[in-house]
């Protein structure tokens, strides 16, 4: 396989909020380290763990001994306090020029990070977001109903908010650090609307956004994370953004 190296002198901070990711966290950290080292990219990984009872923090400490505490940070919290505050907490310790947010459960593959970095370098964008909907994007593990809901939510939001971005609810993104620091303090939505609010506010502030195609692999078969309550929360978030942005 031919690898096109990404050339950058910037440093990248990866924020990984975790809760009960004992099985996945060593694998994603291994793949992240492998990807960054292959492209000779300066990086740090910041694990924000919400007091997982399954030993997530213990395995992160083992990984710190292997890869170095300068490259793997563990910044725990007392309990499950929400995604937005996890980002705020992790950002305090980020020393990178850019911050990458992604899920820790391997649904977002580190192999796309060179594409994000290259896209940012080529366009000078403040934000690069992964899109499941554009050419080259996609999913695995979703049935028709789940795809319909996802597409429906994005179609409705795109029509009402006109963000100029195809995937509003995705959470695999690269931000200029200063931009994310500003955005995270403005966002108050919960659930899926949180990621949408960050993107809409980014556009309102005049930040430039680029997209790269990604494939989201859902490995949590049979465990629905999208009930009626989540959908209602999303609609409320959408209406709030319509009125406040």
């Amino acid at each position: 396989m031919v690898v096109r190296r990404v050339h950058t002198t910037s440093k990248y901070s990866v924020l990984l909020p975790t809760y009960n990711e004992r099985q996945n966290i060593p694998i994603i950290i291994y793949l992240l380290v492998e990807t960054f080292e292959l492209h000779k990219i300066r990086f740090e990984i910041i694990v924000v763990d919400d007091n997982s009872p399954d030993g997530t923090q213990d395995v992160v400490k083992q990984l710190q001994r292997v890869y170095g505490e300068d490259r793997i940070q563990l910044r725990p919290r007392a309990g499950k306090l929400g995604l937005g505050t996890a980002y705020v907490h992790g950002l305090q310790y980020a020393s990178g020029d850019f911050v990458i947010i992604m899920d820790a459960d391997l649904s977002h593959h580190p192999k796309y990070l060179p594409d994000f970095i290259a896209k940012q370098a080529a366009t000078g964008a403040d934000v690069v977001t992964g899109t499941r909907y554009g050419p080259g994007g996609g999913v695995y593990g979703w049935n028709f109903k789940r795809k319909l809901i996802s597409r429906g939510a994005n179609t409705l939001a795109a029509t009402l908010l006109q963000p100029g971005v195809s995937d509003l609810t995705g959470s695999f993104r690269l931000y200029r650090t200063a931009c994310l620091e500003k955005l995270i303090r403005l966002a108050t939505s919960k659930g899926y609307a949180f990621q949408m609010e960050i993107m809409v506010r980014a556009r309102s502030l005049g930040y430039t956004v680029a997209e790269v195609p990604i494939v989201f692999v859902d490995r949590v078969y049979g465990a629905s994370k999208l009930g009626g309550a989540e959908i209602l929360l999303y609609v409320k978030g959408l209406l709030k953004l319509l009125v406040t942005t």
Partner: protein
Amino acid sequence: MLRIARLSVTALVLLVVWGFTLTVAPPSIWTLVALAPVYLVFALGLYLASSLAYGVATFRTVPEESEYLKQDISRARAGLARVGITA
């Protein structure tokens, strides 16, 4: 200007234009003009439905990525085991 303000101004302008048109429209097209808002809502609904249908039809399912991920997980586990970490 906030989005809701822009939408409200647009709606107000359309309402005024519609109201004025109703007062000057000849009887032959008066019903058509009177029903224009209904047609507009219907057209918007049709646009949303067709956007959604197209979006779902082009939303790819990529089974090979699941296979690639499984291979990467196996490789990562082997690499981690070499440094004494079980995953």
